[in-house]
């Protein structure tokens, strides 16, 4: 098995963060859930740009047709 020290260190750091979060008091965890729900609500409010308009939105103003 090949050794990828950089990936290993990222993986270990992420695992340590997950374990830190798991050890938080329940009420603190629920505050985080509340924040995630708020973020989810905001993302749901975002509307899908129809394909044609999306292309137009991507164009920079300098090249957009008049």
């Amino acid at each position, binding site marked *: 098995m090949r050794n990828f020290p950089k990936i290993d260190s990222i993986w270990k750091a992420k695992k340590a963060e997950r374990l830190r979060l798991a050890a938080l008091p329940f009420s603190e965890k*629920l505050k985080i*859930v509340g924040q995630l729900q708020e973020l989810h609500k905001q993302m749901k409010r975002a509307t899908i740009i129809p394909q044609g308009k999306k292309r137009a939105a991507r164009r920079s103003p300098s090249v957009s047709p008049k």
Partner: protein
Amino acid sequence: MQVRNALEVINGMVADGVILDYAIGGAIAAIYYVEPFFTADLDIFVHLKPTWNSLMPLSEIYEYLQQRGHKPSHEFLLIGDVPVQFLPVFDDLSNEAVEMSQAIDFEGIPTRIIKPEHLVSMMLKVGRPKDYLRIAMFLECKAVNKRALNAVLKRHGLWEKWTANEKRFTS
């Protein structure tokens, strides 16, 4: 998310005899033991009164809460800003999970929460991809007592399913 207020209302339902007993289950119960993740609702597993209406098992709960100003929304009842889903125990496993749930104190409110071994067994039984992901979280956090989990799995005929899928949770 005003969980404290919702739990006070649910404790009131027990005191008023609308439900016999309850325990927090689902994602919120999982979050008690592992890291927080997104969930939309609070799942409450309930023991209904012996006189419950088998055609409309939740009618009394809905009536009680609606009389107190809590409105239904899709499959939930909104208690304050918390969408609560009431789930009557539906098999031996969920029945035992509520019976053997542990008492906790949430910001001064006494409540009950399903034990991790029962939660993992229920997730295995349901078997959606997100359930398997959560089982992996429980194992990574060492949130389950393996011996107690094995006993629950064997008691409820889930041992073979566990051994067939165990690699998914530990890899």
